[in-house]
């Protein structure tokens, strides 16, 4: 127990340090661009938390980020670098829109069916990459990345073609019926009941890592050879892990359709795919860590947009901070390993 607690404290401290260092370097860049860092960050903070409206925006962005990060973290834990979050998000969104627009089900049935459809869409999209890996030894980084492009252009085909809203000229589908839309928390704000998704998934993730299957995923990630020797079918586990990872990520697509956009449109996955990878890593693949990290990143996104509007500081500073955090998170992993080795030398005990 003690080791576990110490470890999570260390992880938290490291994550916070990472963010602080990124913000400090960001500050240096802001002042180099001739602006005041204090003002920029104050505006950023104010932009994210300054009013109920803005807080609501933070949560609107946090839902997909957090859900996707949960999704990719499942794969990451098995050492499968699923960076195809946005493709799985899009496939989830497409499948759930099909249910909402064309099946004509009553809303009590349509919503659960659309959730399942989104999970199947995202799950199969990622599961396919998992299958390619086990069958042809195709690197999942490449396949999931390429599948992102296929999903993006497939979406474009649908909204410029067969699914284009007949009543308009914009590349987007019709809106789903109002009865299907997730209720808002308060009028005038965009934050919606999808926030419950975070809570449900957080509980699910906490239990998942205590389950037999969760342990298999972890073991495969710690070493495929030892997992095989322990009688685990690594191939089956890889495919199942990708299916689950994609299914969760697909839910984020469902959320975006039923809670925010109410239709398919280009760029619906925004940049959530890339950021969710950072969120998952910054959160140390830990469900609670991911929840906190996703909150931080959505605040950064929302605040950054405001900062750009209110000051001379360009939005790219947010991209830079994001990039720095990626670099630090990766460097930290390497750094950790190094510390560990030395620590290891010291800790060796005689028999």
């Amino acid at each position, binding site marked *: 127990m003690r*080791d576990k607690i110490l470890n999570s404290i260390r992880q938290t401290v490291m994550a916070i340090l990472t963010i602080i260092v990124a913000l400090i370097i960001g500050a240096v860049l802001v002042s180099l661009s001739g602006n005041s860092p204090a003002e920029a960050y104050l505006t950023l903070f104010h932009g994210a938390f300054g009013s109920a409206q803005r807080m609501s925006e933070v949560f609107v962005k946090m839902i997909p980020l957090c859900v996707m990060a949960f999704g990719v973290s499942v794969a990451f834990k098995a050492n499968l670098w699923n960076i195809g979050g946005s493709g799985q998000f899009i496939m989830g969104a497409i499948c759930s829109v099909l249910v909402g627009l064309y099946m004509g089900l009553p809303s009590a049935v349509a919503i659960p069916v659309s959730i399942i459809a989104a999970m199947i869409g995202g799950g199969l999209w990622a599961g396919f990459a998992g299958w390619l890996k086990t069958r042809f030894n195709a690197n999942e980084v490449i396949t999931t990345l390429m599948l992102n492009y296929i999903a993006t252009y497939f979406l474009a085909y649908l909204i410029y073609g067969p699914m284009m809203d007949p009543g308009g000229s914009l590349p987007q589908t019709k809106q789903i019926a109002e009865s299907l839309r997730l209720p808002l928390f308060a009028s005038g704000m965009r934050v919606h009941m999808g926030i419950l998704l975070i809570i449900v998934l957080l509980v699910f993730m906490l239990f998942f890592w205590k389950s037999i299957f969760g342990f298999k995923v972890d073991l495969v990630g710690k070493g495929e050879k030892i997992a095989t020797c322990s009688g685990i*079918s690594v191939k089956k586990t890889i495919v199942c892990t990708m299916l689950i990872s994609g299914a969760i990520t697909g839910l984020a697509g469902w959320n975006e359709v039923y809670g925010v956009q109410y239709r398919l449109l280009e760029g619906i996955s925004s940049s959530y795919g890339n950021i969710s990878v950072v969120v998952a890593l910054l959160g140390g693949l830990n469900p609670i860590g991911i929840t906190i990290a996703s909150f931080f990143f959505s605040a950064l996104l929302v605040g950054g947009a405001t900062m750009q509007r209110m000051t001379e500081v360009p939005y790219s500073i947010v991209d830079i901070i994001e990039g720095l955090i990626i670099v630090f998170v990766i460097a930290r992993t390497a750094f950790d390993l190094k510390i560990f080795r030395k620590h290891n030398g010291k800790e060796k005990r*005689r028999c």
Partner: protein
Amino acid sequence: MSSLAVEMRNITKLFRGVKGNSGVDFKLKKGSIHGLLGENGAGKTTLMNILYGFYQPEEGEIYIRGNREVISSPTKAISLGIGMVHQHFMLARPFSVVENVMLGKKGRHRFLLDTAKTAKELVNLSRKYKMEIDPYSKIWQLSVGEQQRVEILTALYMGADILILDEPTAVLTPQEVDMLFETLRKMRDDGKSIILITHKLEEIISVVDEVTVLRDGKLVGTKVLTPDTTKEELTRMMVGRDVLFDFPQNDIKPGAVEVSIQNLSTKNDKGLDALSNLSLDIHKNEILGLAGVDGNGQKELCEVLTGMRKADGAIMMDGENIINRNPAFYINKGIAHITEDRHETGLALDLSLKKNLVIKRFIKEPFSKHGFLNEKAITDYWNKKRDEYHIKSDSADEPARALSGGNQQKIVLARELDNNPSLVIANQPTRGLDIGASEYVRTKILEARNEGSAVLLISADLEEILQLSDRIAVIYNGRITGILPKNAGIHEIGSLMLGKKQEAAVNA
């Protein structure tokens, strides 16, 4: 002119505040072979790495041929005539021998390689020290013993007259060891000074003139070897206590055949024949020792027996052919596997200790219930095994990586030997362990045999095979070249290990 080739005075080396060496003195006489003895972690390699310039000591002075030197890098060491042959060879496998030798040396021409001339010099050098080798063969075509010769030749070619060999006998057959020793003696007579680092003193006792023993980073003593120096005396210096070299014999007779391997054939990862028509019977209450040089099919045999590799032939157990099933089947059948490579196939190094203990059984109760792991049952089980196997650890949740090799192997043993396995495959179970830990592992393997398990003990260490086995099979090139009784002579086994056919089949 000093009569010492190397003198190291009061060497102290700290690793993050922990002493790797503390106040060690070391003297190497010119024209002598010096054994540097100690258990794993005693600081032998650290001391030699200081001499070779890999590490800088915190304290102490080094004198080479009487002159004080600061050896700041291996390049400096080489320029002082110090050469080192590492335990893991540092050779580029696709390259030829002569190309490897040239790798470490500046060419005479600025841009062109001088292959032909170097090859000629190399041949002369190898004749001189009786290390015949074809300079144009590629490294991957050479046996391990030949690769070692390349390493030694490289060092000599660079002008070494002080040669450090790190565990040189670990990978060799007895015949190859004899050849190596002859070469070393020739080099000594030629005025070169040689240091042999080892923890297996039996093997070097015949060749060294003097030994220095380290324990826990400190100097225990230096001793000039006389004909009456005994193994036990040196062991006591190394370990600090007496060690059980001869395990108590017991009267348990081998029982019925537990596993019968019949005409097993399979290919290795390169698609070459790894096992050809290999047959073996392993009895209950029996340790069958499988002797052989590494890479003669032992690994593939283990893999076939645990479902990690497909093969032709039959494995009969409980009246049923159980070949080509999945790994889980063999685990459920009670086949325990102490793998050759603890770090890859024995343990998940980043996983907690207690979970490593149940990785083969977490699906079953009480370790999991209703699809979820039962942390409490796992912790209780860990506590029980930790006490039973005297595993030294701070907490059940620390990763396996944090433990020493001996303690890691104890976890593997605790996992594999639990529940009275029907067959125990122990592949190099004491490789890389110090004497104390090896003794423990061997005791546990004997215990498993006494409790009814059939044991297949695979080892390149003949001493170990002879100590434990009830019968000894020898494997060469994927075939069994002979089966010998337990009291077989070491040279008889050795010649079978080199592929000489057995004259008269002895079946004990």
